[in-house]
């Protein structure tokens, strides 16, 4: 049962080859773009690596870079193949190359789609990584004399100023958690104050950093209604928003590149099957049929998986045979 059969007269084949050549060069540029986008995302994630607990999220830019590089190779070969396709003398030399080529290309194209899905789906992982990372960052904010932690204060201050955020909890949450040093059980010096980097420049009054929950400490001040004094957004929320925005934009771009790459592969498959029907015939300008898959989808997958499985089974089968051969002489006295 042939999948997607189409008739290809000579002119249509020529047009297909020309169009495919152009498309494959566009796809090469798109592949380079994917690689660049992967590098960009990785750089951005590394910039804030000190407030992330783990590097799980780095799988997205790593995949994008691998797929970008692979797509450069895939599309380079695609352009070479379609250049030779119309020359009946040169096309047969690609015959043995095409089956593994399509297998590898499909694998990397599916990987591209996976990276797009991951860029949307890894929001939860990013959020939990930032939650743990920021918590540690804030905890070690004061340790400017401890090696390994001395830059945390600087990093958190710069982060808060750049992203216009305050600590990961909202101000209402602070009311519950902060208390004075005398009533604190762990012996830590807690105050209802924030560092200067939480101050909002848009506030019409000079910044109030200390005694935030005490209305009587400041003239004409009510902490429940005061919105402009300090940044109210949490750093975790701001960073997640920033990175998800970046990844969503990149994801949308890579999705369109995936569609382009897919169309290159489909066109190449049609061209290959159409040209194979011409091989051996005297008149190369006859009308031929091109198709996507010779057998059904399931049969084609089994056809590709069989060599891989046989490779592993043969190994096991060989060992079984050797074992049997070894046993036989031993069995015979």
């Amino acid at each position, binding site marked *: 049962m042939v999948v997607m059969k189409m008739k290809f007269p000579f002119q249509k084949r020529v047009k297909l080859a020309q169009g495919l050549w152009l498309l494959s060069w566009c796809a090469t540029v798109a592949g380079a773009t994917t690689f660049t986008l992967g590098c960009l995302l990785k750089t951005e994630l590394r910039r804030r690596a000190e407030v992330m607990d783990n590097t799980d999220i780095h799988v997205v830019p790593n995949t994008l870079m691998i797929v970008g590089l692979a797509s450069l190779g895939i599309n380079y070969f695609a352009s070479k193949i379609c250049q030779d396709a119309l020359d009946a003398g040169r096309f047969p030399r690609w015959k043995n190359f095409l089956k593994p080529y399509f297998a590898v290309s499909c694998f990397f194209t599916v990987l591209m789609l996976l990276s797009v899905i991951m860029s949307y789906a890894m929001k939860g992982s990013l959020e939990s990584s930032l939650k743990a990372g920021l918590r540690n960052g804030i905890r070690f904010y004061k340790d*400017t004399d401890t090696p390994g932690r001395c830059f945390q*204060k600087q990093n958190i201050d710069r982060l808060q100023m750049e992203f216009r955020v305050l600590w990961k909890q909202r101000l209402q949450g602070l009311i519950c958690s902060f208390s004075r040093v005398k009533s604190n059980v762990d012996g830590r010096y807690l105050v209802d104050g924030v560092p*200067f980097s939480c101050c909002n*420049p848009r506030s019409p009054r000079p*910044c109030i950093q200390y005694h935030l929950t005490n209305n009587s400490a400041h003239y*004409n001040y009510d902490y429940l209604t005061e919105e402009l004094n300090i940044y109210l957004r949490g750093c975790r929320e701001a960073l997640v928003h920033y990175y998800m925005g970046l990844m969503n934009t990149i994801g949308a771009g890579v999705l369109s590149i995936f569609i382009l790459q897919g169309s290159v592969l489909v066109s190449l498959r049609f061209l290959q099957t159409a040209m194979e029907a011409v091989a051996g015939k005297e008149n190369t300008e006859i009308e031929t049929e091109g198709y996507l898959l010779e057998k059904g989808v399931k049969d084609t997958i089994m056809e590709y998986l069989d060599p891989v499985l046989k490779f592993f089974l043969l190994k096991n089968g060989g060992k079984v045979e050797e074992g049997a051969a070894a046993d036989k002489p031993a069995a015979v006295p």
Partner: protein
Amino acid sequence: MSVGKVTFTKVEREKLAEVLWLLNWISVVTGAILLGMGLFLKMEIQKWQEVMSEQGVLYVPHMLITTGLAACGINFLGGKICLDCADTNKFLRWKLVMMPYVICTFFFTACILAGALMCYNIRSELEESLFLGLRYSMLYYKDTDTPGRCYLKRMLDLLQIHFQCCGNTGYKDWFQIQWISYRYLDLRSMAVVDRLRNNVEGKFLMDSVPFSCCSPLSPRPCIQQQLNRPLAHFNFDQQSQHLNLWRKGCRQALLDHYTIIMQSISLIVLLIWLFELLVLTGVRYLQTAMENVIRVGDPESESEGWILENSLAETARSNFNIIKNLGKCYQVDNDPNINVPAMIAEQEIHSEQVQVQRTS
């Protein structure tokens, strides 16, 4: 005696025309670069224009923008002209335009040089403008409820954070200004009233700075108040004081920022000027060579090209005479169309004068 005389064969003339066509197109690109740099400089100045007392410095980017546009236009035309100059017949079309084109190119090349020198020399004017502008911005820092000044607090805070600076010359400038508005001062409090009374002008002055002066590089939380009394804070030694706030004044920080931009632009503009000079020289040679070919009459022959036909002094003198005589175009004496011998004309004038004397 011509200046820079060179002899051109037909092949050399054609090659010169081709090369100049290419150079003119490159000049269009450099003109676009000039335009881009002018726009960039204008945007950079307008970003922080509230801290500049007057907008006089904007004439530099305007000059660059105008010159860039002129460069694009003139060199686009020049490309067309040079392409046609390879052929004698096509050159005749442009014959009358060539001289004005060369003069225009000369003037706009001079403008490019002027632009480069302006960029280089603007520092002192900018410093004065920034000094006054920052002083006024700091004075009106607290006026967040006055229309026309309400944005100054935010702008100054963002400036200090972005450029890592504090105050005009240093952080102590804030001690001489009341930067806390009366709206947020409890005038019933004795401490506040005392402080207001202690000051001659009735201003609320403190030895404290806004939060935007704080440096994240400090190992301790920022100390903004009682800066003149280090003993008021625990363990506030020399080193802590040094790291606590930004030490640089905003005037110096902004001046450094703009100086770097202007110097880079000035260098690029100088390089563009040298390139334009090259193009101008080539076009002048091509113009004179083609004119001489037409004068000789034989398109295949060799011709001479030069920069100036006579020496510099003679050319200056003849141009001066042309300008002097521009206003005398309607005088009878000099009209070449009237065939009046000079001697008879003088006699007639003399006899008229005598008759007039007799009648009076």
